[in-house]
Structures are given as C-alpha cells and as structure tokens.
C-alpha cells in the first residue's frame, strides 16, 4: 500500500520543552488513522507540522510524498483540513463558501459547478444552496464543512476533533462520511476525545508527553493491554507513563 504520510525521528522543541519526541509512523492510503492523546501530549503540534503550518526542529516527514520542509506549498495543496472551531464562514452562503474554497485550491469554475451540484445532491442539501451557513443546523454544517474540506480531492484530510459537542446520531452520521471518504481512497487523519470513535479507526496511535506510546489496530491494542475497550487502553497508557 502507498504511504501517504511518512514520519521519521520527528522532533519539535519549544525552548527546552519537547513537544514531539522522535515520532516515527507511517499512514497508508485510504486509511482512517486515529491520532489520540491526552491534552498537551503534542497532538496539535504534530498535526500542525504535517499540515505544513510549522517546521519541525529535526527529523524528516513526507506528506503526500512531498517534503514538509521544502515543499510546504505542495503539501498544503494535497491536504484538506477541518476542525470543530473553524470550518466555514458563517456569514457566507453555502455556495459562496464553496466558491471561496474552490478559489483557494484553484478549482476551475466549470469543475466547481459540476462538483458543487453533485455534493449538494449527495448530501440532500440542494435547498440550502443560498442559505447562510450560520442559519443551518449543526449537523448540516458539519457535513458541509467536511465535504468542503475534501472538495479538491486531497490525498489526506486532517480532522481535528470534528465531532465535539454533537449529538450521538449526528456524530455517527459524520462517521459515515468519513468511511465514504476512505472508500474513495482519501486518507483520514483524525483526533478525538470520544474513545468509542477510536474503535472506528483502522489504526490508532496514542501519544503521551510528546511520544507515541502505542500504535496499532484497535483490536491488537486491546489484546496487548488486555483491555475491554479503547477507553481502558487509553487510561492504562496515560496512567502507566505518569
């Protein structure tokens, strides 16, 4: 399988504080990769580096086969990003948001038109084309935000706690979208605080104090830590290290 993220001995220091301590991992094409860890474990730092927003102190990393030191522009062109905090402009309509992000990623107007129609049809949101994002229910917003994040067919999409504060049904519907994207060959790199969501990932890495303490399929992790579920795995790792 093709590696879309390759990380070797990645270190990021802020002064004397080591936020990322020699990270090593690969993520494969079409994989749903769960990136877990306690608050302050260094997830956000690592994610910023992989998105080309921050340079590591040392080590190597390739995202979509581009070097994150030298080819940040190409990296950015080949990834999508969505977080709970920022996704779409609330004061623009659905169509205006799509037009804006298409412009950012250099999608031609003709392509955009076609893809936009398909997207709205697939999501069943055709009637909302000219509604302001701010007026839509949270569940719709999220679906749209995700669809816009992968509108330019990136190789990888980074999701930073995409389901925080969402009701259980909407949360699960959101995961349906993640599975669909993965079926289309888009790699999904996701952080979450819901441990049940960790189970939906193909593989999960758990960070603690800047290091990756565990990385495997949920199945194997549960065996390895003789735990009933991922919640227990997580607690065991976090408590052991402390």
């Amino acid at each position, binding site marked *: 399988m093709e590696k879309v993220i390759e990380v070797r001995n990645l270190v990021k220091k802020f002064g004397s504080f080591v936020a990322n301590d020699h990270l090593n991992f690969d993520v494969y094409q079409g994989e749903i990769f769960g990136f877990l860890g306690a608050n*302050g474990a260094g997830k956000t730092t690592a994610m910023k580096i992989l998105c080309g927003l921050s340079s590591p102190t040392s080590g190597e990393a390739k995202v979509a086969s581009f070097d994150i030191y030298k080819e940040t522009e190409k990296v950015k062109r080949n990834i999508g990003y969505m977080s709970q905090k920022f996704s779409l402009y609330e004061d623009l309509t659905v169509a205006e948001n799509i037009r804006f992000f298409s412009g950012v990623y250099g999608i031609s107007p003709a392509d955009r038109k076609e893809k936009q129609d398909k997207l709205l049809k697939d999501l069943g949101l055709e009637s909302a084309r000219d509604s302001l994002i701010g007026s839509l229910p949270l569940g719709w917003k999220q679906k749209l935000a995700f669809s816009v994040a992968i509108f330019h067919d990136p190789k990888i999409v980074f999701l930073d706690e995409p389901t925080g504060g969402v009701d259980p049904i909407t949360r699960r519907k959101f995961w349906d979208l993640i*599975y669909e994207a*993965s079926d289309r060959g888009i790699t999904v790199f996701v952080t979450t605080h819901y*441990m049940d969501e960790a189970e939906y990932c193909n593989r999960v890495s758990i960070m603690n104090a800047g290091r990756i303490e565990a990385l495997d399929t949920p199945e194997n992790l549960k065996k390895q830590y003789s735990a009933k579920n991922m919640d227990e795995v997580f607690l065991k790792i976090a408590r052991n290290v402390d």
Partner: protein
Amino acid sequence: MISIQHISKSYKEVQAITDISLEVQKGELFGLIGPDGAGKTTLMRILMTLLIQDEGTATMNGFDIIKDYKKIRNMVGYMPGRFSLYQDLTVEENLNFFATVFKTTVSENYDLIRDIYIQIEPFKKRLAGKLSGGMKQKLALSCALIHKPEILILDEPTTGVDAVSRKEFWEMLKNLQQKGITILVSTPYMDEAMLCNRVALMQKGKVLDIDTPRNLVDGYTRKLYAIRSNDMHRLILDLRSYEKTDSAYAFGQYLHVTGKDDEVEATEFENYLMRKNHEDLEVHDIAPTIEDVFMELLQDTIV
C-alpha cells in the same frame, strides 16, 4: 435544593429552552446531558441569575432566582463553559482574587479545595493561560469552590478534556458530593451520565426524560443486538439496506442494531449477513447504554 418550574427562554427568534421543570435534591449529583444547542448553558445561566427567563420560576435553596439574585450569587459556585479565569494571572493570583471577591481567604476554606488544589500547587507560580486543559479545569473548580458554596453549577467542565482528565474530574465531583455539596453538571458525553445520581436528557431546548441512569437504561425495552464483522463499514451499509433493520449505529467495536418491531431474531441477522459474505461475524444480545436510550429518544422526537 434546586427547583425549576416551567422555565422558557428565547433569544430573538430562537427558542433556547422550552418549558423545563426539574428538581434537584440536596446533596445530589445531577447531570444535564445533551449535545450543543440543547439549552444546557441557557438553563444554567438562568439559574446563575445571569439571564432572566421569559416564563416560569425557579428557586435555589429556597431563594427566588430573580428576587434574591444577590443571595444566590453568594451561595452558589459557578464554572462557566469556557475557561473563565485570568490567563495573565498565575494560579495562585487567580485563587486569591476569587477568594477576596467572595470575602474570604484561601486558608479559611482550604479544607474543601485541598484535594484538588494539591494537584496544581506545584505550578502555582505559572500563568493560568499556560496550564494544560486538565489543570485549567482543576484551577477553575478550585476557584468555584473557594467560598464554600452549597450548590455547584458546572457548565460542561469536561468538554475538550482528554479521557484521563475527565475521569479524574468526575472522581473529584464524587468527593465533593460526599462533603454535602449539591452539584448540577452538564456534559455532552453520554457515558458520563452513568456517573450522576440522576440525569435530564436534553435536546433542542427540551427535556426528553429525567431519571436515574439505571432506570433510564432499564426503561429501554427494545431488543438490542451487538454485531460485528471484519469490515465494519460494509457491515453498516448492508444492515441499513436490510428490510428488517430498524436502526444500525456504530458503538465502538460493535454495531448496535434494532430490528423492525423487535421481532427479528439474532439468527435472522446472522443468516442475512452470511449471505453477504461477512467474515468473523458475531451477533449477540447486548444491554443498552445511556447513549442507546438517548438515541432512541432522539428518534422519537424526529418522527
């Protein structure tokens, strides 16, 4: 201890909460469970005398929330949803400030906060803005407790906090409850409902149900199956397209599935899925969780 009667509140056109009534007993740990937009924050702000309800009345420890707002502000500890301490003050400075605001001192009420504060004391000279999420929560809780409140109102204290810190936080709440403090806490995490004495399940400004978590789960009468195979995504799609499936949702490593009219047997699902070539198939009965209950209630409100 807290008595809420028929409270409604709207902002301009948006109806934030509609006709909410509930009672919290003295010494109880009561949870408001629901997603964003359920109206949890609005209800808490009304109780905290920060907003005025359009309709209804409420009392806390016998005091009316409108007439006696000054008494309530003296008596209740409050932790808003956002981290609301001064980021440019140190841990110690924040705590001292809130102590003086409530006309008390840290040493006077140290007993109550000791167990919590002791965990952040090594960092007392650090600016609050530089603390990790879990430590911020502990500091905020210490500040909310500094005046020995009889009632504690906590708005989503565990949102955005990792699983370990969440667990610790709930242990702290249990300890405070032992000390006789009445606690009203809100959370979007369904699993935390099990840690409360009683919960109100909320959605879109309405209370769907109020009971002990145990009773809520026991009240779930549908027949629930846990199903898994080695291709979960295909499994969920196949089950949803099966005419005998009522609902199929992912729950961790299993899918929780209900059949139409609860008359579908486990073997029927099994046979159907075998025909669809699922491997490592596993189908068995499972006891519902609070999340199943909540989702069932959501389905009812949507229909």
